[in-house]
C-alpha cells in the first residue's frame, strides 16, 4: 500500500513537471513542515507532518481544469495521498459547468458551519487545520447561471461523502459518556452509491452595492451519523451489561441564507439555517435507539471592523432545537462566540493573530494565538498555540490537548 502511494506520488510529480513545460498549464503549491507538541504530561508530539500540496491548472478557450493532489507524510502513520480537487470547467456566456471533485463553500460565517454543508469536514485534527484542509472535496456537477450581479447555482452530488472522523485512539476523538462497555456495528454506516441517494443543493447569491445576499437550500445526508444505541440487559439481574452503537446517516432538508452589509464603517454579517429532521442523542428511555428527530435552527450575527491596522471580527452563534424535550443530550440553546484579531507589521512580513471560540453553555474555549514571519516572499515560519479551556463541552473536552506548534511553509 505504502509503495503504491509513493509510486503514485512520484507519478503526480513527474506529470506535473512535464505539464509545467506547457504554456497554458500552471503549477502552484506548497511544501510544509508541521510539528505540534502537547504541553501537558511528557511533551508528546501531537503531530509531525510533512506536506506536499500541488495545484495543477490549465485553461484553453472556454475550458479549464484544476487538479489538486496532496501528500501527507507522518512519522507514525502511513503516507497519505489524496485529491483535494480534480475538476473540469466549461464556460459559456451566462453559465458555467464544473464537473468533478470540488470544494463548494456556502455562507458568510467564519470558522462556523451553518449553511456551509456541501463540502464535508475532515475532523481528524478537530478544527485546527487551515480551512481549505478541513473542507473536503466532493464529486459533483455544479451549474452556475449568471444574471447581472446575481448567481443561481445548482449542485448535484451523486455520491455521499461523510465527515472524516478521528481514528480510534486519536486524541481528537470526541468523548462519549457511556454507562456501559460499547461495541460498534458499522453495517449501516455506508450510504449506498446509487441515484436515489444523491444530494441536491440550490444557491442564489447577489453582490449588491449595499447588501450581499445568499439564499441556499439542500436535500442531503447529515455528514455526522446518528448513533443508534441498543442496550443489552441481563434478563436475570436486570443490569445493563453492554451497548451496541450503530452509526447511520440520515437525510436532512435545509433552507437558509446569509448576508453582509456595510454599516458605518463596520461590515455586519448574518447567517441562518433551518434543518428539518436532525437526529439528537437522548436519555429518554422511551426513545427508539436513544435518538430523537427534531427540527433545528443554527444562526449567527457578526461584525468586521478595522481599527489602528487591526482586522477585528466577532460572531455570536446560537443553535436551537425546536420542540425540545428533556433528556436530549445537547442543550436546547447552545451559544458560542468567536473573536478574531489580526495585524501585520514590517510591511506584511510579520503577522500577529488571535482567534478564539468561546462556548458559553459550558464555559469552555479554544484560544489560538499565532505569529508568522515571512523570511522572503513565499517562505513563512509560523509559531502558535492551541489552548483549550474548561472541562467539558466542544472545546473543554480536549483540555488535555493544549499544544504549541510550528509550521514552515514554502509556496511556489
Amino acid at each position: 500500500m505504502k509503495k503504491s502511494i509513493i509510486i503514485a506520488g512520484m507519478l503526480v510529480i513527474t506529470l506535473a513537471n512535464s505539464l509545467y513545460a506547457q504554456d497554458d498549464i500552471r503549477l502552484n503549491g506548497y511544501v510544509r513542515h508541521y510539528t505540534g507538541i502537547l504541553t501537558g504530561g511528557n511533551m508528546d508530539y501531537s503531530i509531525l507532518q510533512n506536506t506536499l500540496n500541488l495545484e495543477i491548472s490549465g485553461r484553453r478557450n472556454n475550458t479549464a481544469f484544476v487538479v489538486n493532489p496532496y501528500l501527507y507524510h507522518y512519522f507514525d502513520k502511513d503516507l497519505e495521498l489524496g485529491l483535494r480537487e480534480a475538476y473540469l470547467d466549461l464556460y459559456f456566456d451566462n453559465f458555467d459547468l464544473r464537473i468533478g471533485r470540488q470544494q463548494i463553500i456556502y455562507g458568510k460565517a467564519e470558522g462556523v458551519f451553518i449553511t456551509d454543508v456541501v463540502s464535508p469536514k475532515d475532523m481528524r485534527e478537530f478544527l485546527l487545520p487551515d480551512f481549505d484542509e478541513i473542507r473536503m472535496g466532493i464529486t459533483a456537477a455544479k451549474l452556475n447561471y449568471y444574471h447581472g450581479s446575481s448567481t443561481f447555482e445548482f449542485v448535484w452530488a451523486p455520491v455521499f461523502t461523510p465527515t472524516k472522523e478521528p481514528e480510534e485512539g486519536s486524541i481528537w476523538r470526541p468523548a462519549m459518556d457511556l454507562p456501559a462497555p460499547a461495541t460498534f456495528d458499522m453495517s449501516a454506516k455506508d450510504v449506498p452509491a446509487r441515484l436515489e441517494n444523491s444530494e441536491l443543493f440550490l444557491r442564489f447569491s447577489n453582490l449588491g452595492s449595499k447588501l450581499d445576499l445568499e439564499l441556499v437550500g439542500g436535500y442531503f445526508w447529515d455528514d455526522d451519523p446518528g448513533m443508534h444505541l441498543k442496550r443489552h440487559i441481563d434478563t436475570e439481574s436486570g443490569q445493563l451489561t453492554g451497548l451496541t452503537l450503530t452509526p447511520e446517516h440520515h437525510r436532512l432538508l435545509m433552507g437558509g441564507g446569509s448576508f453582509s452589509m456595510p454599516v458605518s464603517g463596520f461590515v455586519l454579517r448574518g447567517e441562518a439555517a433551518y434543518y428539518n429532521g436532525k437526529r439528537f442523542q437522548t436519555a429518554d428511555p422511551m426513545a427508539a435507539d436513544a435518538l430523537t428527530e427534531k427540527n433545528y435552527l443554527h444562526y449567527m450575527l457578526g461584525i468586521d471592523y478595522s481599527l489602528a491596522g487591526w482586522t477585528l471580527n466577532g460572531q455570536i452563534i446560537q443553535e436551537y432545537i425546536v420542540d425540545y424535550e428533556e433528556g436530549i443530550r445537547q442543550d436546547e440553546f447552545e451559544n458560542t462566540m468567536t473573536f478574531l484579531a489580526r495585524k501585520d507589521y514590517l510591511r506584511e512580513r510579520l503577522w500577529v493573530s488571535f482567534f478564539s471560540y468561546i462556548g458559553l453553555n459550558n464555559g469552555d474555549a479554544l484560544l489560538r494565538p499565532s505569529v508568522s514571519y515571512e523570511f522572503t516572499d513565499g517562505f513563512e515560519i509560523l509559531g502558535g498555540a492551541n489552548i483549550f479551556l474548561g472541562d467539558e463541552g466542544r472545546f473543554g473536552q480536549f483540555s488535555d490537548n493544549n499544544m504549541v506548534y510550528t509550521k514552515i511553509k514554502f509556496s511556489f
Partner: protein
Amino acid sequence: MKKTILITAALVAMFTIASQQATAQLSGQQIMEKVYHNPTGDDMQSELTMTLINSRGEERIRQLKQFSKTNDDVEKKIMFFLSPADVRNTSFMNFSYTDGSDDDQWIYLPALRRVRRISSDGKSDYFMGSDFTYDDLGDRHPDEDTHKLIGEEQVNGRATYVVESTSKDPSYMYSKTITWVMKDSFLGLKREFYDRDGKLLKTLLIKSFDQIDGFWTILETEMHNVQRNHRTVMSIKNVQYNTGIRDNQFTERAMTLGL
C-alpha cells in the same frame, strides 16, 4: 500675407493671455475637480508591478493585473494578484461612487473559496505591504476634502499649481496633503502626505507619464515613506483603453474564476 500672419499672431497672443487669466482664477477646489475628472476612458486594463524597497535596499516584488470601467455614477475596478506565489489567484474588487458615498470592496481568497465583503473603513490599511494605502490608490472624491490653492511652482521644468487639501473627516489618516498639479494636463506630479501630528509622512512622485490612446497615463510612481525610509515603486505596462470590457468582468464570477 504678412498682414495675415500678424493678425494670427495677435489673436494667438490674445487667446493665450485670456486663457492664462481664466486658469489663474481657478480655485483649489476647481483644480482638484479637474484632476478628478481627467478623462480616463470608459475602461482600462494594465499590468501592475510593485517593488517594495526597504531601508537596506532589499526588494520584494508584487505583480497584478487590473481592469477598470467607469459608468455614469460608479468606477469599478478589479485586481488579480499574480505574485508572490502565496497570494496568487487572490482578487480584489472595488466600486467607487462619484457621489462620494463609501466604496464597496470585496476580496476573494482562494483558500477560503468565497468572496467576502470587506470594510471600506480599512482604506487606511497598506495595500499588499506597500507604502500605498487603499485610499492612496483610489480616486478620492474632491468633495471629501477642503482644497486651498497655496501657490504655483515649477517642478522639474513643469508649471504646477500647489494645492493643500484637508479632509472634512477629522479622523482621516492624514492631517493634510499637498499636491503639485501640472497646469497643462491636470495630472498630479507630486504629493506630500502629512501624518496626524502634522509631520511629513510620505512623498509621492510621478516618475513617468505619457498619453496613451489620447489619455494621460501615469506609468511609474514612487511613494517614499520618509519617516521609515522605505519606498514603493509602482509601474504599469501593457495599458489599453476602451477595449470594451464587459460589465460581467466586475462580478463574483470574475473574482472566483480569476484570469
